[in-house]
């Protein structure tokens, strides 16, 4: 019993850390450009599929190379998607609806392209590190530890980027006051595209990390989109700190509900908690209106 609870807590922590990585990406786009990206889940699968492709090349057969190569590919992909699809809509009054529609169309396009290219079968990635850490009944797989380290590392790297680089600072400036940022000479359009690209990298990395535990399927991203969405709304849209707390709360909640009531109840419990939170605090845990 006791060991089981510890197992549940650990699985909650590990899922929470990956959710945090992905939810921060989603909340970042919303916070900076007020655009909602429906294709976010498809970018998650894209990360998994890129890693799957790279693993099939003999020379690139390790995680270090895969992560180093996948990140720039995702970065460029995200940048051009924003420039080509989202940026032209920004002039319109009703651009929020239009962005939702166009990204939904993109999601449908991408998901079904995966199905045609890779087939409907589930794909899996090799484990990052084989073996387990054992202490009596308590077992912790090294793979889980690696996933945790990489996602926390990703978040820390992102934090460093926001606080210490010029682009990161301009991202923060645009999030706080778009008009003011433009007046002082920050290229707003570039910042929008850059945040979109960074969020694509974050969710794609999440896809690569989780693909070794779960599987990559063409429509598997929808689940992730809904979870990231719930977490961002729960934590407050646009609030990175709120997203981090919410991700761990959701990860824990999911692990405990799944363990105690069964996996089918996790989604229902998630939405129940979300609705209660939104009824009391419509702006989420740490969000602001505006």
């Amino acid at each position, binding site marked *: 019993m006791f060991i089981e609870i510890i197992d549940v807590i650990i699985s909650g922590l590990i899922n929470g850390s990956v959710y945090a990585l992905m939810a921060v990406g989603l909340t970042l786009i919303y916070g900076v450009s007020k655009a909602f990206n429906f294709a976010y889940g498809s970018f998650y699968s894209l990360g998994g599929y890129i890693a799957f492709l790279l693993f099939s090349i003999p020379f690139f057969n390790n995680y270090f190379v895969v992560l180093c190569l996948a990140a720039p590919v995702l970065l460029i992909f995200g940048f051009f998607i924003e420039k080509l699809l989202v940026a032209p*809509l920004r002039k319109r009054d009703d651009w929020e609806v239009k962005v939702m529609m166009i990204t939904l169309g993109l999601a449908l396009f991408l998901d079904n392209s995966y199905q045609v290219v890779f087939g409907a079968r589930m794909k899996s990635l090799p484990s990052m590190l084989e073996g387990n850490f054992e202490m009596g009944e308590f077992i912790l797989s090294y793979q889980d530890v690696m996933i945790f380290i990489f996602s926390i590392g990703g978040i820390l790297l992102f934090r460093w980027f926001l606080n210490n680089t010029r682009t990161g600072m301009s991202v923060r400036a645009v999030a706080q006051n778009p008009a003011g940022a433009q007046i002082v000479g920050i290229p707003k359009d570039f910042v929008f595209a850059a945040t979109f690209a960074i969020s694509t990298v974050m969710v794609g990395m999440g896809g690569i990390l989780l693909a070794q535990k779960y599987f990559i399927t063409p429509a598997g991203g929808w689940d992730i989109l809904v979870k990231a969405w719930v977490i961002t709304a729960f934590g407050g849209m646009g609030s990175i700190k709120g997203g981090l707390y919410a991700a761990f709360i959701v990860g824990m909640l999911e692990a405990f509900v799944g363990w105690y009531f069964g996996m089918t109840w996790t989604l229902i419990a998630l939405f129940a908690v979300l609705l209660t939170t939104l009824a009391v605090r419509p702006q989420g845990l740490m969000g602001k209106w505006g």
Partner: protein
Amino acid sequence: MENKRITIFLAVIWGVVAILPVFFGSTNFIMHILIMCLIWSVVASCWDLIMGFAGIFSFGQVAFFVIGAYSSAIISARFGVPPIFSVFIAGIITAGIGILVGLPCLKLKGAYIALVTFAVHMILEPVLKGDIGRALGTGGSRGILTIVPMNIFGYTFTSSDPIPYFYLLFLVAVICSVIILMVIKSHWGTAFLALKDAEDFASCLGVSAFKYKLMVFALTSFLTGMIGGFYAHYVGMLSTRMLGIDLFVTLMVILVIGGVGKFPGAIIGAFITIALNEMLSPLGSYRPIILGAMVVILVLVLPDGVTGLFEKIFSTKKRGLTH
């Protein structure tokens, strides 16, 4: 568009649709597609009313449709209610659920509303498949395989004889579109626009956001649930596959083609999209890819849909005359 022009537009559309069976009446396959067009035109118009006019990002439209379909099927099978009444009861049930969903949305904004309403969509599948659904009679993951066919005063409509069915649904669709048109024309429509454009200002002037938002939720979910009931009795079987993302996006394509907030546009969009969908079906798994690419391209190239294109053509003509 001005009201008069919308009315003329609507009359022309329905006039053309009314005579379509004269040409296609002998082909059951085409009649089936036309019936589907009528059903989806109502669902899409309702969505347009809530999203385009009232400015509420409700993503629960398919969920309301499915709730209506299931409730009508269950009520008619369990309590022996004639389908023509069970359809209305289903509408009322759906309206009730619509109000329940609308209540938390009153305090929320933009993407949050989209999330809450989409959550209804996401939860519906496990609920219908799970123990609660089975207790209600949804048949779990198998779905409902036999549904009482529609009959009115002893006359039974069957899907093998589609022409009477077509006119029945035609009548329903016309009534629904007239209701929507009246709502848009009345002070409701003005209130919606005011709330959408400047909510704080409108509520300062005494436009009750509470009242109008709940009303639009109730009305659209009532109509959607009712047409869902008609769908259930027409198709004769239901499963949770309807909640897949495919149908949701098809509905989205209808709105994109028709134009958001350009009312009769959703009806034209429904006819174009459903027909196109059927034409693309020989392409198999490439169909959704093309559909997705189409949404992307259409949003970029034709942001106001076909209706926007018409408007542009007409307005340039008018300018030409006055000069």
